[in-house]
């Protein structure tokens, strides 16, 4: 999504590689450091849960709506989770309005995978009547300002929204679903945390900025579940990674993930 100016890119890349060889970055961070993370929850009163997240200059807002839905035929006794992401045209100079492109679809699917595969939410309790009605969670993210690493900002925003969301309690009344008006927290079991890293000339950096993404060779996102497991992963961009880089990425995902998890728990009152 950053503007792809060949000349600027080539010059920047040379400068960046020199800095990276000294173990530092354009903005002065160490290789595995992430930018300042700010999380504000409950920003949209009409949503069941919401969060505004900034990661450096990347800013996103997530809103979660929870309603009744019809289960998928292969999972009649489980609630639904549907993640969407849109990079709004107001988020950078080079963007245009339109349906989500492949990058936005990948973004939503990688965030979805982290939440789903970590089993963050106890979906088996999100059932109104098995096979008929279940709770459906719609998590939508709008990217407001692009400065790299949309994956993590989006992921943290959805997780923070879910941690603070209140959902209505539905009951069956005959064949119809009735809203009792009672509001309860979402049944959360774990707090998944993603960490996205970029490989630039074989050096791995965590939480890349737009400038870094413009010159990166490959990207990798790994999500951990806080119980010692890696639960989702995605390599991206047309470059390659070595096995050593991927194992380093896994180490960082676990260690940095723990720090970020603590910050998310604190910001959402789940500490």
């Amino acid at each position, binding site marked *: 999504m950053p503007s792809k100016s060949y000349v600027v890119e080539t010059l920047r890349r040379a400068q960046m590689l020199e800095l990276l060889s000294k173990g530092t970055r354009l903005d002065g961070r160490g290789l595995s450091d992430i930018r300042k993370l700010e999380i504000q929850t409950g920003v949209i009163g009409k949503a069941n849960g919401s969060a505004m997240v900034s990661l450096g200059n990347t800013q996103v807002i997530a809103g979660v709506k929870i309603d009744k839905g019809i289960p998928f035929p292969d999972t009649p006794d489980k609630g639904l989770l549907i993640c969407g992401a849109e990079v709004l045209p107001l988020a950078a100079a080079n963007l245009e309005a339109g349906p989500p492109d492949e990058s936005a*679809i990948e973004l939503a699917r990688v965030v979805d995978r982290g939440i789903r*595969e970590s*089993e963050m939410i106890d979906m088996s309790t999100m059932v109104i009547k098995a096979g008929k009605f279940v709770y459906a969670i719609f998590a939508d993210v709008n990217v407001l300002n692009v400065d790299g690493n949309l994956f993590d900002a989006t992921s943290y925003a959805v997780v923070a929204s879910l941690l603070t969301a209140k959902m209505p309690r539905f009951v069956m009344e005959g064949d119809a679903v009735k809203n009792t008006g009672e509001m309860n927290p979402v049944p959360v079991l774990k707090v998944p945390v993603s960490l996205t890293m970029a490989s630039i000339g074989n050096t791995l950096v965590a939480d890349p900025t737009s400038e870094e993404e413009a010159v990166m060779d490959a990207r990798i996102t790994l999500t951990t579940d806080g119980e010692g*497991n890696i*639960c989702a992963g995605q390599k991206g961009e047309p470059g390659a990674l070595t096995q050593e880089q991927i194992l380093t990425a896994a180490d960082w995902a676990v260690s940095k993930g723990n720090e970020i998890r603590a910050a998310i728990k604190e910001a959402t009152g789940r500490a």
Partner: protein
Amino acid sequence: MEEKRKLIDENGIRTDGRKWDELRPIKIEVGPLRNADGSAYIEFGKNKIMAAVYGPKEMHPKHMLVADRAVLKCRYHMAPFSVDERKNPAPSRREIEISKVIREAIQPAIILEDYPRTAIQIYVEVLQSDGGSRVAGITAAALAVADAGINMRDLVVGCAVGKVDGKIVLDLNDTEDKEGSGDMPFAFMPNYNAITLLQLDGLFTPAEFKQALEMATEGARKVYALQREALLTKYFAGATAESTAEEVGE
């Protein structure tokens, strides 16, 4: 995803009779399509996948062309009859994401700089799907690119590993993919040890992740031997692998 039934029996045998580190039967053919500039067909377990390449050709739309190299495009698509329940033929979000990761997995192997201002289009059509269709698709697509005579640094070959009944196993079949507890598609350029596709879902400890990565590399090397043999069969029919290695100057 909880496991509903045992997928590995007490003798360590999987639902389709394989051992933990065994690949499904694989059949590869290079150049089955006449019109395409390059093509390949792969059967990987029950997967039946056709890959085709057109290009280098004129870039459309023109404003998308790149002055100093070719632009690589990729479409992964599943036929409506390829799965148990008919699939809507319109591209799903899953297919759009897979098209992107396949393109990014193959791109490092193609010397795009040799074809400035052009487009190279890869098609991966899944005619029948089983577990691991994206990695089988990559294996076929890389062959189709080679068959098109496009300059490459290496082939790209894929293989998935997964977690079934708490054990890391090679090359998941459909049942293991759906009922197992983890899946990790993987692809690499075998002569560079450069990993060009990695996805993961399910729960893996860091130690299992490392084991999975090593097992995938080893499995993909076995697929690479078959991939290379398929290319030699088309272009050096009758010759042995050793004598052709000399001919191609290795």
